[in-house]
């Protein structure tokens, strides 16, 4: 095991190398899935259910089939039977049942995208409609506990005696927080180009993992994994929505089967992305905190409710961060689900931590207020010596350093402890803080091949993904340092199942897992062939196991600060400044890392102020299903975002000493903004997003009797 042990000596690592794919992207020569040259493609357009629950009683395709250029109209009646229908989300067109509005009920293949789209609009479907239920309410009597929650975590946990501790606590907070349904909305829609040749399937796919797509799609069509080829060199964002296959890739592969040898191009329209590409469930979180007069937590209780779909369970791990974040002897967390007639929820950037830390970190702000304590100080007082959940030491935990540095950067000393006490030119001004956390996941199962070429050059191959995050660059830097050669001598090859298996770009684990495999391969090559390997010499390495994960709790931490200005009379909110300080181990490329963190915080700002998918309960669908109505922060909403990190040396996480930075940036941002808005106005908004009218409530109106002080 010498190959995985020992740290890589950083040379290229830690330098702000420009994106190696930057030129190709800005000149438009980088080819995304839809743009792959595939001869003369044909086009697919989906037909969607117009009821939220029921059975199809009739589907008239005659008019669609008669449109010039139409090659095939797919329905559940003629669609290829799938070999495996256990995953109901992927069992596309396998029955007449409709489980949510917008579900695929058909597709049209035509020689032009216009003909396909037009013909799709002519398909007439009749239904036996059943009553549907598509709005999450926490007071339902049919909430249930899933077996486990996303990530394989326990559904409920309990330590000590929470009720007794809360009953005897000097100070308590008892509040309910809600976060809105959000849709991922990467710039590039979900796109597939599918082609069948000699019984094998090739998919040019916009995905977070080519091997993941292969392993999930192959059994659907009764294929061996090596009969499915997946290609995805560039991806225009995924944010989790491309982390598992959804219905579109299956529909495209089915359609392509009807026209063997011809490539079928399929891209979701923006409105369709609100139905069949996953989303962040809304959450309702009941939080109770108990503390002594000095703010030291004695009890933490989080009861989280979210929704899942009738056909497939997805259980957001909303409360997991509360299990490890702060010290407290008594603790309880639960997750409950409502099963609704809605599309299947899925991952969206930091599922679990992101909505969970909104609620928990606003509750901490409320506790600080109730104790008359500075919220930074409150968090420092509740630092645990070891992981409260497992008792293990942290491999590194630098939350306090992040809090102190962030406080310095934002000018925390200017913060008035009493809300609504700073006015500047008709605006109420406030500062707020929240903590960030994200686990370091060890994802086994990746391998990499390093091959020596002429002139001291090396080719490094791994079926990894670059979602626009910087993999092309950062992984090349890791390979260069592992081989102890300059980056220019490394040619990286990713995004294709022709290359060795790689875990999915999810859980902020990509660089960590793939990088470990690359390091292993490079060291094997050196062990076998020394510093001058012959042309064609090759070695393969794996991510393998990391025994240290059994001994340590591994997390990245951060602290986020917001300055918020609120128009006193109209409630208009502006966030001129966000400060994020992170402790995420070794930062492989400061330039791409900064972009990730700025992007995460921007998305967090957007979650705080704008993003909300409004469900129309009568129709059972998201009403604002396009970017005109589903608001994402515009450029003019984003002020100064100050991102930095502290030097952190973690010898346990992996040979690079790195932790993931893709998701932590969005964790805590919304809470920092809400806390700053409270500091500015005295109005405590517990329901995201923070809209104008919510901030015009009577100061303190929301506080009610729920904060108790003895």
């Amino acid at each position, binding site marked *: 095991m010498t190959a995985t042990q020992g740290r890589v000596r950083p040379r290229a690592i830690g330098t702000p190398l420009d994106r190696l794919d930057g030129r190709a992207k800005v000149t438009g020569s980088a080819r995304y899935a839809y743009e792959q040259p595939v001869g003369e493609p044909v086009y697919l357009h989906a037909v969607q259910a117009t009821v939220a629950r029921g059975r199809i009683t009739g589907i008239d395709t005659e008019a669609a089939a008669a449109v010039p250029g139409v090659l095939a109209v797919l329905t559940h009646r003629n669609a290829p039977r799938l070999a495996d229908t256990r995953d109901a989300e992927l069992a596309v067109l396998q029955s007449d049942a409709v489980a949510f509005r917008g579900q695929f009920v058909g597709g049209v293949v035509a020689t032009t995208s216009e003909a396909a789209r037009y013909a799709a*609009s002519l398909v007439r479907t009749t239904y036996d409609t059943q009553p549907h239920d598509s709005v999450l309410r926490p007071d339902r009597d049919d909430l249930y506990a899933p077996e486990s929650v996303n990530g394989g975590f326990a559904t409920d946990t309990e330590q000590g005696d929470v009720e007794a501790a809360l009953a005897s606590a000097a100070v308590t907070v008892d509040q309910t927080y809600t976060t809105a349904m959000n849709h991922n909305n990467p710039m590039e829609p979900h796109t597939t180009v599918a082609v069948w040749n000699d019984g094998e399937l090739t998919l040019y796919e916009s995905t977070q993992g080519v091997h993941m797509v292969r392993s999930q799609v192959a059994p659907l069509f009764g294929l061996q994994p090596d009969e499915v080829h997946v290609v995805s060199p560039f991806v225009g964002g995924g944010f989790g929505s491309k982390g598992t296959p959804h219905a579109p890739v299956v529909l495209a592969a089915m359609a392509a089967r009807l026209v063997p040898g011809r490539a079928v191009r399929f891209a979701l329209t923006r*409105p369709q992305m609100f139905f069949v590409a996953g989303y962040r469930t809304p959450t309702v979180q009941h939080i109770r905190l108990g503390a002594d007069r000095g703010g030291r937590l004695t009890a933490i209780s989080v009861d989280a409710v979210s929704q899942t779909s009738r056909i497939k369970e997805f259980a957001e791990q909303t409360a997991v961060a509360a299990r490890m974040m702060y010290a407290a002897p008594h603790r309880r967390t639960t997750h409950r689900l409502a099963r609704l007639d809605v599309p299947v929820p899925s991952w969206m950037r930091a599922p679990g931590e992101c909505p969970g830390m909104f609620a928990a970190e606003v509750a901490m702000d409320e506790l600080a207020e109730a104790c008359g304590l500075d919220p930074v100080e409150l968090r420092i007082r509740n630092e645990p010596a070891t992981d409260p959940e497992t008792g293990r030491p942290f491999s590194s935990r630098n939350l306090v350093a992040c809090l102190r540095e962030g406080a310095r950067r934002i000018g925390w000393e200017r913060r008035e402890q009493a809300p609504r006490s700073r006015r500047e030119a008709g605006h109420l001004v406030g500062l707020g803080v929240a903590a960030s956390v994200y686990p370091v996941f060890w994802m086994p199962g990746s391998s990499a091949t390093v091959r020596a070429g002429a002139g001291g050059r090396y080719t490094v191959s791994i079926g990894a993904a670059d979602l626009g995050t910087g993999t092309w660059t950062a992984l090349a830097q890791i390979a260069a340092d592992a081989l102890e050669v300059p980056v220019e001598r490394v040619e990286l090859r990713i995004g294709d199942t022709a290359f060795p298996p790689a875990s999915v770009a999810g859980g902020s684990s990509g660089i960590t897992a793939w990088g470990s495999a690359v390091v292993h391969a490079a060291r094997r090559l050196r062990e076998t062939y020394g510093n001058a390997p012959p042309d064609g010499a090759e070695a393969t390495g794996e991510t393998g196991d990391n025994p240290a994960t059994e001994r340590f709790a591994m997390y990245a931490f951060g602290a986020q600060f917001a300055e918020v200005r609120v128009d006193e*009379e*109209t*409630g*208009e909110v*502006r966030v001129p400044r966000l400060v994020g300080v992170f402790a995420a181990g070794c930062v492989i490329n400061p330039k791409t890392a900064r972009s990730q963190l700025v992007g995460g915080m921007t998305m967090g700002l957007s979650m705080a*102020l*704008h993003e*909300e998918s*409004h469900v129309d309960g009568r129709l059972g669908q998201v*009403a*604002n299903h*396009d970017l*005109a*109505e589903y*608001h994402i*922060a*515009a*450029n*003019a*909403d984003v002020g100064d975002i100050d991102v930095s990190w502290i030097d952190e040396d973690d010898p346990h996480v992996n040979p690079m000493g790195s932790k993931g930075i893709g998701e932590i940036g969005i964790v805590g941002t919304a809470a920092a903004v809400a806390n700053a808005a409270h500091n500015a106005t005295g109005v405590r908004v517990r329901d995201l997003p923070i*809209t*104008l*009218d919510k901030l*015009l409530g009577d100061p303190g109106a929301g506080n009610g009797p729920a904060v108790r002080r003895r």
Partner: protein
Amino acid sequence: MEFLRPATWQEALAAKAEHPTAVPIAGGTDVMVEINFDHRRPDHLLDLNRIAELEEWETGEDTVRLGASVPYSRIMAGLRTELPGLALASHTVASPQIRNRGGVGGNLGTASPAGDAHPALLAGGGAVEAESVRGSRLIPIDDFYTGVKRNALAPDELIRAVHLKKATGPQQFSKVGTRNAMVIAVCAFGIALHPDTRTVRTGIGSAAPTPIRAKAAEEFLAAAMDEAGLWDSGKPVPPAVAKQFADLVSGAANPIDDVRGTATYRRHALGVMARRTLGWTWQQYRDHQGSKSCA
């Protein structure tokens, strides 16, 4: 769908007469969205982009004749003095890309209660020059908006221009949105002081089925200012008067609850904007009076 591309205004009028259901397309920033969403699928699109005179304006003694297709970005750059309210409103439309394409003719064609030009047009005062092969007529702006996304154009008519009174006093425009750009107004308010007639005109957006004026507020204010001799004295508007004006503006609105905001919020915000913009314009007026008397 047939795409008609008249090269001259006369050809455009003839085409519209021949195909009264043809949908004119100027900047296309409303039309293309509607087609893209399949909200409408007209048999004919009537492209106005080759007609140069629609993108020009003429400044007369008292009015500006603003071609229907002059984009917002050129109004902002070139007409700040003559049409300050409209220039300010143009500033708040969408994004630079949209402002380079879209214009007042299209805003009037769509006649959405949320169109940002409307409050400024109502406050500034003017008329829409509508033309057909039958002839040309001026439709007073007050009579133009007839219902939700409906206007007074006859099926064979096109908008040639809008005739807008050159500002004789300060004008302001204010808009509340749920984000800082690219946003449909939660509500908007325009105000124009007309010292020449000693009147004040207003326009309200996104708070009723059509863009409207707050006439009771205007009349109240004119009377109160007359009575106190404020136009001559240039003294501050008494807070009680400003408040009553704001309340009357709120009362003029007939808003709904929707995803962008509640009716209550809209009424409240309109009152705030009315009071603020009155304060700003009156201050500008006083500053102007002051500088005149010093000269």
